[in-house]
């Protein structure tokens, strides 16, 4: 777990206390919830920008976006996103797939015991 500390004035703290209390939350919970709510759009934009620039991979983009599985895929489609990967990688993985034999991966069936 990471921790962020920052200083605020007594007046600001009092306002946060009132707001948090009104929601039945602690100040920490209130601040954390609101920060992530405020940056939610920015997270999605940043995730797809970095992906587009080839700076991050698919999984990292998903995590940065903060979206759930289906939301992330819908957003991917909406933005016409693409992961930058070299052709040789997909060629090689296809070659591997074509060389695999089912029998090596099958669970032992009860009848064969």
């Amino acid at each position, binding site marked *: 777990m990471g921790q962020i500390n920052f200083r605020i004035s007594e007046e600001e703290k009092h306002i946060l206390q009132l707001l948090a209390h009104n929601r039945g939350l602690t100040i920490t919970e209130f601040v954390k919830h609101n920060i992530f709510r405020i940056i939610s759009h920015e997270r999605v934009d940043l995730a797809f920008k970095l992906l587009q620039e080839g700076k991050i991979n698919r999984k990292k983009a998903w995590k940065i976006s903060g979206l759930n599985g289906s939301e992330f*895929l819908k957003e991917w*489609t909406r933005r016409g996103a693409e992961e930058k990967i070299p052709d040789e990688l997909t060629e090689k993985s*296809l070659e591997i797939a074509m060389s695999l034999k089912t029998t090596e*991966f099958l669970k032992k069936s009860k009848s064969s015991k």
Partner: protein
Amino acid sequence: MVMFFLLDTCALNHIRELYNYKIIDLRHVLKFFRICITQDVLSEWVYYNLDHFFPPTNCYIFPVEDKELEQMIQNFPFFEDFDIADQTLLLSLIQESSVLISDDGALNAAALSINKKAIFLPDFCIFLVNEGFFSKKDVRRAIKFWEKVHRFRLSDLKRWTRTLNQIM
């Protein structure tokens, strides 16, 4: 030789998408195979509710020791860029006779860079056709769907279609 398929979170998310859009349900076939994950991968599945879609009872959970992870990072420092779940998959790939099914390009590239086997979900689907588990028609439908939703690059989808057409 006894081998395992390691299944990553991105690939399972794509498998669920295929199911949600009524394209193809790969779970019935996955259950025939030795599918492996790690505790950290399982935590991601739980976080993204993928454990309800494909219960971990269908999987073997590889134990991962912190010391082994540290050793792996020492040997391959660039693996540190991956999150903990992906790191544990790479470690399992190193330690066990296995093939990684992942839709994360960087993870697959990392696996191949150390001479381990990694494939994308469409590769796995083609393997399933090649081995008689699915018809070409089923997988063509998946490829068309992926094209429609931009899930993979067009050039790769064309390659997969060509290979599919060549299967007797």
